């Protein structure tokens, strides 16, 4: 007789809350002999929004590409949904990436495709019918408040609109993990706020685990101290100087993690470099 190894239904349904969604263990990477990330370790848990701060050129984008398996580290292990992306073949990574949405630093929309085809790219690849994918594109563009841009081409859009299309493309398949690389980079403060609002909306409506790079401290703190009011459809400051406790920080400098913790811990950090950076 074979022993009954089928896990109980409860074990399948209950998500393993202890298992991090993303984990980096002693990850290092160098380009042409120049170390970009050195011995990076951190974890991101279910429903957490992890904000990555640090000066330009500090390896934040590289870290995000490592998390998606777009780059391979020289040493160390990276696990996403418990799977080791460092040793996976590209073909298996494609399956894993179906669960990950990514917003690139410069949007990276496909110039040759219309907004609709950009947003529906993944649905078209998966063979979803034209009608269904159109409906879902309309819904995703409505979420980013770009209903009217559906027939336009990326070259006809402003920077902020491109960023929003890019967000729509990343969330259309309702991924379990979203990677935002500098979603407000290069935008004016007002446009930045509308993008931050979208990210807060995504966080508070869908509770998707996410990694977010920014070098604008103001955006980071808006994210940490606001919530999305579904009744009014607006982003609001949390009452009594409240802080969203699903939002945590990681600060990188010169390729090393110099801070890993909550918003309160960050603002109270005694580290002189961090004090200087935050001021």
């Amino acid at each position: 007789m074979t022993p009954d190894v089928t896990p109980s239904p409860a074990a399948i349904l209950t998500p393993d809350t202890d298992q991090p969604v993303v984990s980096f263990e002693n990850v290092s990477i160098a380009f042409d002999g120049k170390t970009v990330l050195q011995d990076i370790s951190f974890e991101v848990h279910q429903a957490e929004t992890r904000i990555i701060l640090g000066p330009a050129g500090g390896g934040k984008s590289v870290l995000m590409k490592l998390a998606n398996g777009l780059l391979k580290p020289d040493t160390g292990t990276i696990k996403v949904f418990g799977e080791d992306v460092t040793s996976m073949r590209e073909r298996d990574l494609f399956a894993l990436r179906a669960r990950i949405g990514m917003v690139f630093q410069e949007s990276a929309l496909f110039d040759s495709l219309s907004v609709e085809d950009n947003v529906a790219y993944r649905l078209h690849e998966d063979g979803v019918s034209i009608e269904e994918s159109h409906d879902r594109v309309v819904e995703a563009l409505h979420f980013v408040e770009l209903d009217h841009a559906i027939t336009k081409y990326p070259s006809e859009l402003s920077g902020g609109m491109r960023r929003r299309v890019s967000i729509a493309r990343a969330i259309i398949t309702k991924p379990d993990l979203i990677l935002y690389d500098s979603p407000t980079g290069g935008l004016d403060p007002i446009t930045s706020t509308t993008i931050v609002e979208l990210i807060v909306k995504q966080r508070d409506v869908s509770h998707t685990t996410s990694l977010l790079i920014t070098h604008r401290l103001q955006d980071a703190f808006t994210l940490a101290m606001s919530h999305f009011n579904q009744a009014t459809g607006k982003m609001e400051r949390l009452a009594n100087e409240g802080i969203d406790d699903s939002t945590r920080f990681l600060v990188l400098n010169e390729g090393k993690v110099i801070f890993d913790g909550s918003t309160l811990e960050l603002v109270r950090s005694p580290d002189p470099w961090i004090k200087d950076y935050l001021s």
Partner: protein
Amino acid sequence: MSFVSPEVFAKQKIAALQDYSVLAGRSISNLFSRPIYWADIYTQMDSIGVGSLPIVILTGFFTGCVLALQSATALEAFGAKSKTGSLVALSMVKELGPVLTGLMVSGRNASGMASELGSMKVTEQIDAMRALGTDPIRKLVTPRVLATVFVLFFLTIISDAVGIAGGALVGVSLIGLNASSYLHSSYNGLVIGDIAQGLTKPLFSGFIIATVGCYFGLKTTGGTQGVGRATTQAVVVSSVLIIVVDFLVSRLMIGIFGS
């Protein structure tokens, strides 16, 4: 320009050759598994084939014209002016048709592929494609390789035909040869081995153009400046390779057909 030691230089070149071979291999092996992007293949055939038609016709035609003019003068010295048609047809079908068509398409499309894929690389569209679960080699390289090989074959036939026609035009109107004997001598001059040789070459050239163009495009770094560099390199490398491979194929086919 930074100078490196010969050892590092050699290692870099070998690594590049290895990367190129992997890309070339995968561009073909992707044809044997799904998905195959047929729509992209047709789009590429249209842009490479229809787009290159004018330059291929023009170069083919005038090459035939000048060939007739030059060979008639040379052949006259041996009293063999009536062999002009045969010489033009042989040169067009075996050498000039395949090589010139290859070079023209290389100038137009190896550069186009390198700059298009290069721009996509530096604006992270290639990474975005991978992040969205698509293999860029399958989606971008394989359709270009297949389309170029297919289309270059027919462009070469067209070039041969208009070259022979151009030669006939010059032969009849400027050199005063008889039209029907000119065409008869063209036709009789060609044997199956010549045609096989002439039509094998574009298969190689097409493969070289697309794989080299895509290779330099996909390894572009350094922003828009890098795209310009990739474009130049793609044209230079693919043009030189076309001529080298032309020689190798000629030698091989002469070995097989003995002519």
